[in-house]
């Protein structure tokens, strides 16, 4: 991989495309499954043991946000005292935090509209700001249930729709693999939330659901390439389905990385502005969920969805027969491999080592250029 010193980036993209440089992702599927299983175990444990920190939209309660230039610890204490002094039962134990540099946030239990007005006025008086500048959010106790219920319904229908769409546009095994990757992303992301203790608000939920869309989107692009590479695959005997799928992952790797970077840039901008300038709220919650989710989603479409698809497909009798044919063929040409081993020691050694020793054994058959094209499916035009 280090044969050329200059202009490295473009050639790497190129070698990935031709298969000269190939990461054996599908071949090492057990490794990725193990990593993901570990990740999911940690995520589930975190969710079960630590639980999720739910925002007031889900638990019910009130949140009062007031401008407080130069807020510091003493301001927080004073405001807290002022809120407790209102004597409103629901506000006996307020959570008062400084948000950013010029805002203060008071979270209380459930308040009636009247009570929240009293607390608001107390906060405004304490800080010496007009009451109209104070933002108030009062959430009833069953609102969270309502949001959760509709979101769950929407999610189920969405998944159904996606399975249907992918089954028609692609095939049902791709749909299964894509959905599996999707669950992986959601559990992992929610797990990270449980682990770190970020609060879950409706904006976070938007983020989660967007991750679903994004993760699928990303997987669809890879699968589209897999489909192209494996078209008419049973008509030849030079490479297996897994190898063709692996090539597809490698060929779309540059795109996947580019896409992730391009997706993360605006999300990073929202996160930066949302967390840095506004301190808290919709933008930050949304962007945080997206940022984590896009990262996890990119990983899963490369390392989970495609290997899973290959595993599913390799169970098909015709493809098993293909794998046997490929092995038999490689066995017969293996003899010639030894002499040519040093002429092309580059990529295939890392590339297809595991799956039938493709790398070395292919070489003597080919010129350098042909080797570049090793494993290219015939379906391409």
């Amino acid at each position, binding site marked *: 991989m280090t044969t050329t010193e200059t202009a490295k980036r473009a050639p790497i993209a190129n070698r990935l495309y031709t298969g000269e440089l190939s990461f054996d992702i599908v071949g090492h599927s057990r490794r990725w499954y193990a990593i993901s299983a570990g990740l999911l175990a940690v995520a589930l444990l975190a969710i079960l043991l630590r639980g999720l920190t739910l925002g007031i939209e889900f638990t019910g309660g009130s949140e009062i946000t007031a401008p407080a230039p130069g807020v510091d610890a003493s301001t927080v204490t004073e405001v807290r005292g002022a809120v407790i002094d209102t004597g409103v039962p629901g506000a006996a134990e307020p959570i008062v935090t400084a948000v950013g540099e010029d805002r203060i946030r008071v979270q209380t239990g459930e308040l009636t509209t009247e009570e929240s007005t009293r607390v608001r006025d107390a906060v405004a008086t304490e800080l010496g700001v007009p009451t109209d500048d104070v933002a108030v959010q009062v959430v009833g106790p069953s609102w969270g249930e309502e949001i959760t219920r509709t979101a769950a319904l929407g*999610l189920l229908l969405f998944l159904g729709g996606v399975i249907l769409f992918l089954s028609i546009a692609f095939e049902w095994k791709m749909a299964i693999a894509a959905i599996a990757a999707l669950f992986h992303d959601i559990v992992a992301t929610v797990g990270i939330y449980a682990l770190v203790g970020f609060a879950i608000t409706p904006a976070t939920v938007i983020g989660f*659901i967007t991750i679903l869309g994004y993760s699928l989107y990303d997987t669809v692009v890879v699968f589209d390439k897999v489909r192209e590479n494996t078209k008419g695959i049973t008509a030849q005997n030079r490479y297996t389905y897994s190898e063709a799928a692996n090539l597809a992952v490698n060929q779309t790797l540059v795109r996947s990385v580019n896409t992730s970077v391009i997706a993360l840039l605006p999300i990073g*901008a929202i996160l930066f502005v949302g967390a840095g300038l506004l301190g808290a709220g919709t933008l930050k919650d949304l962007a945080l969920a997206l940022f984590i989710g896009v990262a996890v989603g990119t990983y899963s479409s490369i390392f989970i969805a495609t290997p899973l698809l290959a595993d599913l497909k390799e169970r098909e009798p015709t493809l098993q027969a293909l794998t046997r044919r490929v092995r038999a063929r490689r066995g017969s040409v293996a003899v010639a491999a030894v002499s040519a081993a040093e002429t092309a020691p580059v990529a295939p050694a890392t590339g297809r080592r595991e799956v039938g020793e493709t790398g070395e054994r292919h070489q003597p058959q080919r010129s350098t250029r042909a080797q570049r094209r090793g494993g290219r499916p015939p379906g391409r035009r």
Partner: protein
Amino acid sequence: MASTNAPRPWRSLDVVVAALALVYGLLAVQDLWLPRLGLDLRGGTSITLTASTPDGSDPSPDSIDQAVEIIRDRVNGSGVAEAEVSTQGSNNVIVAVPGVGEDELVQIVGQTAELRFRPVLAVVPGASPQEAPTPEATPAPEGTGEPTAPTDQPTATPTEAVGQRAVTSGLTAQETATPVETPAAEAPATEAPPTEQPAAEQPATEGALVADGQATPEGLAQLQAFDCSQVEVAATDAPEDPLVTCDQDGTTRFLLAPADVVGTDIRRATAEIPQAGLGFVVSLDFTSEGADKFYESTQRLAGQQFPQNAFAIVLDGRVVSYPTVNEPIPGGQAVIEGQFTQQEAQRLATVLSYGALPLSFETSEVTTVSPTLGSEQLEAGLLAGALGLLLVSLYGLLYYRALGTVVIASLAVAGAFAYGLVVLLGEWIGFTLTLAGIAGLIVAIGITADSFVVYFERVRDDVRDGRSIRMAVETGWVRARRTILASDAVSLLAAFFLYTFSVGNVRGFAFTLGLTTLIDVFVVFLFTKPLLTLLARSRFFGEGHRFSGLAAERMAAPRRSGRAAPAPRDRAGTTTEEALR
């Protein structure tokens, strides 16, 4: 492939230019340049009410519509400008009010709508000359109630019209009508000394206003002095107390006795056309308990003089209609006749039906955002968007060199469409741009840019395969467009389900996400691809200048064999491979 063999890039670009001109032309015609901003961006109060029925089932769309009507009346009645009432999902009603400090509004919008039948004691018609006469009606048994019904039922239309006139003159004779404009804002509260109730909005006490079912002089005086603008929105309408109130137009004033029949006494009400008659009537079906109450009430009212023979249908403390009673109506069946149009009859029927089955509303969420915070959030959203665009543009230039300008131009076109459509849709379907919506637009930058990445990578793949750049731009497109369509379909699916099955903020996000996905398809098909076709004809791109982003040597594999240029191959690589075998 046929379509790509003869690309007509200029025509596509013309379509884009025409579409842009159309969008902005429409904006210019309506002189609309700014999107409709959500309350979280301009400050305001948003109240989310969740309806529930007594048995816990989902409320019917009709009852929700009726509830929205009632809430709208309440909001408008409270004098708040520009308030919007809308539904979300099957059982949520959102009230959006620009401006803050509407504590009182929050209290009243969520109250259960109450329906009462109250005997009318006195009426003062509106002073306004173009006062819309409430279609008055005579309740009478009909249809199924025929056997029990007296047959000499007077035709409603003529008597009613006369009745209305008579009232006017009658009252003016009785009480020398004081001008309605009397500044009587505080009058009821201050003027009635015997008021035992602290509730200021209850302008009446039984002793003061009504005695033995008759209006007292004091009650009449208070009626005269009453100012309709003072009627509480969703006034606490205690059925056992008398009430001074107005009709929904706020013109005619009434002094009403305690309620005889309440909403729950009505089983159902329907608008229908009588067998022999013109116009519409509203037929009422009472519960057995309600039937007794109604019979008793009509017995008392029938035979009295107008207006004492009328009962007022009071919803939310305001008189919806006040039909007169000509004879006692037993049997729990009645018809309200009048010069109803179909619409009026249906509206009255709905009021009667759903007043009978009141939806109770829970105030699920109240959010108040100060205008200062709103504008800060708007600025932050815009800043994040600008920053996101800048970063993506820089990355595009860095990675794709000159091709990055295509990314930027395409994003600019997509952005222009997105902005124009958001503004237009704000006007057409009332779409409001919220912070979450802005976030959706920003996230969409990534998805839009990804279409270009998919396409460019395909083109570069084909260049690596040894195709000429001009050729690769076409062949790469054929495969890229399928990928773009498939992945955009998934995005659209996500947006659709998000929008349909969500409440609150999520919808704004889903809407902009779906909108920009559609714009993306439009732009990449009709702008990016044709633009690339055109550029490929230029020397700079077509011959793969080293900064063009398509330079073959920058993408080619290291050539250890000393070959300087990619092998010119017209056919697909696989053919070569086959040949080697």
